[in-house]
C-alpha cells in the first residue's frame, strides 16, 4: 500500500545570529490513504515547519519524505499539483472578492469552480451569498471557509490544514470537524494540526508533538490506553485549596486541574479505593472521588513529564 504521506527522520533547524534553534528532530510518521491524521501540540512544537517541508515550500536539513508517492525534493512540481494547503495565517488576496479569489486559484490549477462544485459545495455554499465581498472584509469564520474552498478547488489528493481551528469558538470548531469528515468521505487524505487536545479524539490517528519531537503516534483510543497509572477525578468545595493539599500528600504523584475536577495519580498504583478514600475525604467538606478513564490531554501531560 502506498501511503498518502511518508516522513522518515526529517530534521530542521534555524540559525539566528549565534543561536541555533531545532524546529524538528528526526520526525518519522506515515499517513495512510484516506486517513484523517492529526498533529497535536502547542505553539512551538514544529507543526508549521513540518507542513512547510511537506508542501515543498522549505527544504529539510536531513531525512526523506514523500507525498502521494512523490519525493518532496525531486518531484516537487508533481506534489504542488496534488496537494491543498491552508496555512495557519490567512493568505488569500484581501483586495479580491470571494468569487475572484476562488477563480484565481482555479485558474492556477487549470480548472474551474463549476468542474469541482460538488466537492467544495458543502463549504462554499455557506459563503456564496457574500461572493462579491472583498476577502479582507470577511469575518474570521468566513475567511476560514474561503481558504478551505481555495485549497480544495483543484480536487487535491492530500489536504494540509495548519491550525484551522485556532482561536475559533467551540461551536464553529465542531462544525469545522464535521466538514473534514465529509472531505474524508470524498477520498481525500488529510493532515491537520491543532493545539486543542480535545480535537485529537476526532482524528483516525494522531502524533503528539512537543518542542520538535514526536512523543507518540497512535489512535486516540491507543493514546488513552497507554496512560499506565490508575486515574482519579476529585472534586470538592474549595478546588484551589484542595489541589494545594493533595500536592502536599506523599502518596500523590500528580494533580492537575481539569475543568470541574482535579485529575490525580497516586504513586502506588495498587492502592484500593477504600485506602484512597480514607486519605482524601478529610481534605474537603464536600469531597467526591471516582476512578476515570484518561483523556488525550492526560496522556499528553504524562508524556511531557517523561
Amino acid at each position, binding site marked *: 500500500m502506498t501511503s498518502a504521506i511518508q516522513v522518515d527522520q526529517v530534521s530542521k533547524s534555524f540559525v539566528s545570529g549565534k543561536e541555533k534553534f531545532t524546529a524538528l528532530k528526526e520526525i518519522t510518521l506515515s499517513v495512510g490513504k484516506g486517513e484523517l491524521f492529526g498533529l497535536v501540540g502547542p505553539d512551538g512544537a514544529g507543526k508549521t515547519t513540518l507542513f512547510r517541508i511537506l508542501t515543498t515550500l522549505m527544504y529539510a536539513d536531513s531525512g526523506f519524505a514523500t507525498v502521494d508517492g512523490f519525493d518532496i525534493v525531486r518531484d516537487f512540481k508533481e506534489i504542488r499539483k496534488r496537494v491543498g494547503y491552508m496555512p495557519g495565517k490567512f493568505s488569500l488576496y484581501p483586495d479580491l472578492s470571494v468569487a475572484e479569489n476562488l477563480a484565481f486559484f482555479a485558474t492556477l490549477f487549470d480548472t474551474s469552480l463549476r468542474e469541482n462544485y460538488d466537492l467544495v459545495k458543502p463549504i462554499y455554499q455557506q459563503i456564496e451569498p457574500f461572493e462579491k465581498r472583498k476577502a479582507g472584509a470577511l469575518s474570521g469564520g468566513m475567511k476560514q471557509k474561503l481558504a478551505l474552498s481555495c485549497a480544495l478547488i483543484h480536487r487535491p489528493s492530500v489536504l494540509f490544514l495548519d491550525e484551522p481551528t485556532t*482561536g*475559533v469558538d467551540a461551536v464553529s470548531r465542531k462544525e469545522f470537524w464535521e466538514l473534514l469528515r465529509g472531505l474524508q468521505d470524498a477520498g481525500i487524505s488529510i493532515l491537520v494540526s491543532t493545539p486543542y487536545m480535545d480535537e485529537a479524539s476526532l482524528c483516525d490517528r494522531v502524533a503528539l508533538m512537543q518542542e520538535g519531537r514526536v512523543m507518540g503516534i497512535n489512535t486516540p483510543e491507543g493514546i488513552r490506553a497507554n496512560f499506565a497509572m490508575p486515574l482519579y477525578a476529585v472534586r470538592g468545595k474549595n478546588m484551589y485549596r484542595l489541589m494545594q493539599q493533595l500536592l502536599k500528600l506523599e502518596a500523590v504523584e500528580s494533580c492537575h*486541574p481539569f475543568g470541574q475536577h482535579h485529575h490525580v495519580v497516586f504513586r502506588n498504583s495498587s492502592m484500593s479505593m477504600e485506602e484512597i478514600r480514607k486519605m482524601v475525604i478529610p481534605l474537603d467538606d464536600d469531597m467526591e472521588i471516582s476512578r476515570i478513564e484518561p483523556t488525550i490531554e492526560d496522556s499528553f501531560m504524562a508524556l*511531557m513529564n517523561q
Partner: protein
Amino acid sequence: MTGEIVISARDLTKRFGDFTAVKAITFDVMRGEIFGFLGANGAGKTTAMRMLCGLSLPTSGTAQIAGFDLATGSERIKQNIGYMSQKFSLYDDLTITENIRFYGGIYGLTDKEIKDKTRQMLGTLHLEDQAKTITKALPLGWKQKVAFSVAMLHQPRIVFLDEPTGGVDPVTRREFWTMIYEAANSGTTVFVTTHYMDEAEYCDRVSIMVDGSIEALDTPLKLKEQFESSSMENVFIQLARKATRSNA
C-alpha cells in the same frame, strides 16, 4: 472575594452605523473575583472589553470601572487596570528586562520600584538566567507568564486577559491558571476570555454573550443546573447555537 463591586456596567451599548455590536449589557463584578467572559466569535466580546478598558466610548449606557466613570475617567481607568492578550502583550525585540522596564515606566513606577519588581518577578518565574533573552526567543507559554506578570506590575485593581492561554501547552496552561488564582486571592479582579471550556469551570462566575447580549450569567455550577448540562461546553454550545448574527 469581598462584596465590593469593581466593575459595574449598566445597559452598556455600542453601535457601529446600523450594527449594534453590544446590546445593553448589565452586570457587576466583585473584588477578587475570577470572571469568565465567554461568547462565540463575533458575539461582541472584544468590543465590550474595549469599552471596559476605557479604549472605546459606549454609544449609550454607563459603567464604573475600578471606581471611575467610563464617560469621564477613562484615563484614570487605564491607570488602574492591567491588560494582556494572546495577540499582543510584550515587545518581541526587547529583552525580558527591557519589557519590564518599559511597562514599569509607562505605569509610573520609580526606578527603584522597577528594579525591585524585576528581580522579584524573574525570581518567581525562575527566569533569572533569561533576564537578557530577547522576548521573541522564549517559548509562548513562558512569554505569556511574563506578560501576565507585567500586566500586574502596577498592582492594578482589575486585570483583563483576552484569550491568554491560546496555543499554550497543557502543563503551562495550568501553571498560568495557578497565577490567576493567586492574583484573585490577593484581591485583584480577573476578567478573562477563553475558548477552552475547561477553563470556564475555573471561573467564579461566567457570562455568555450571544449576538451582542449577555444571555447567561452565573456560577458554572448554577449554569450547568439551569441548562441541564454536565459540562460548561454543553452550556456554551446550547447558547451559541442560538446565534443568528452572520458569522458563517
